């Protein structure tokens, strides 16, 4: 429990699946639908959400291994052309999960992978956000993780704010909860 307890992104990052191997038998859990006996045998290989896998790992019930999204293939692709790797389909909380995994298992390569990936992609995100016409954006946006999408939106809105400041425009806004669309004119 801490400052992130109510943070939805932190919670959703914990939902990402990681590969794990059970070291102990576990009784009475319906974790896997194929399992009728409700018992998990030792040495069974499974994919568990991170919130469960990490707690079990700390108690030596399971052993967590590195998720495939931080594997060799991703490392090579990031090294070749980091900015255009589709990270979202691999793990939409790539950076967050990476940081959590490193704290759990001592793995040296992930830290530098995250750093290289973020550095190359950050530059590209900002360039795209400041320049590209909105029609081009959707294709590029579909490659970005949650964190990068937020950066993109932030960069875009600051460009827009700068334009309104320079050109002068309406400064009052309708309350955002009421929605953007104007109400249909009643006849």
């Amino acid at each position: 429990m801490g400052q992130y307890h109510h943070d939805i992104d932190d919670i959703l990052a914990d939902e990402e699946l990681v590969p794990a191997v059970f070291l102990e038998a576990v009784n009475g859990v319906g974790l896997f639908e194929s399992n009728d006996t409700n018992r998990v045998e030792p040495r069974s290989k499974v994919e568990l959400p991170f919130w469960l896998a990490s707690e079990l790992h700390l108690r030596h019930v399971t052993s967590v291994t590195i998720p495939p999204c931080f594997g060799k293939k991703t490392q090579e692709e990031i090294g070749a052309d980091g900015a255009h790797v589709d990270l979202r389909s691999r793990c939409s909380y790539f950076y967050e999960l990476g940081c959590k995994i490193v704290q759990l298992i001592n793995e040296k390569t992930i830290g530098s992978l995250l750093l290289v990936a973020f550095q190359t992609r950050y530059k590209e995100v900002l360039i795209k956000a400041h320049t590209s016409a909105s029609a081009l954006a959707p294709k590029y946006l579909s490659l970005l993780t949650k964190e990068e999408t937020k950066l993109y939106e932030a960069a875009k809105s600051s460009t827009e704010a700068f334009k309104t400041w320079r050109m002068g425009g309406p400064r009052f806004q309708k309350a955002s909860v009421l929605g953007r669309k104007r109400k249909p004119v009643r006849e």
Partner: protein
Amino acid sequence: MYGRKASQLLKEFVSGEPGQLTGFNNDVFAQVIEECDGNILHLQALLRKMQEEGSNNQTNKNADHFGALVHHLSLVRNKRCLMAYVYNRAEVIQNLGWTIKHADLPAAVKEKLSISENEYFGKHSSNLQSYMLDLNLDLAVDMVPPKDPYIKVRVLEEIGEVLLSDQIANLAMHSILFLKRIDAESFISQGKMEELTS
């Protein structure tokens, strides 16, 4: 998989536009609580079984112990998800109080709130109003630093004759008026007027 439903609830919340609310999802919320009830039943059954076997769960960590652990972790997880859902919605609702008075809330937004959220908004909003009344100062205006005390606005909805701070004005639809900022501001945030810039 345990906890899947609860995360769906949160995914639904973040998929909406920031600052806007989606309807309170009573269905999934109830399903998550149902899942928690199931977890408790399993947890208690496992604990009972361990007691009957006389095993001390501190020293003898057997398969039942770990089963109970999984159910415990799932309960904690689901609780965290549900709390985050309610908490983040409450934040949006609190911010509402600064732009719209409770009585002015459109029905379309009102039906998105659960019963207790509605009550929360009403009370928060009236607290805010009475505080401003005590101070004799409307804190909800001038959120954007003023450049000029007057602004030009177009009326988007029929409002009718209204007593403003310096005049009685007929705010008919489509009319363009020059009003004091502080009078226009609440109408704009309700979407009944828009600011015109030359």
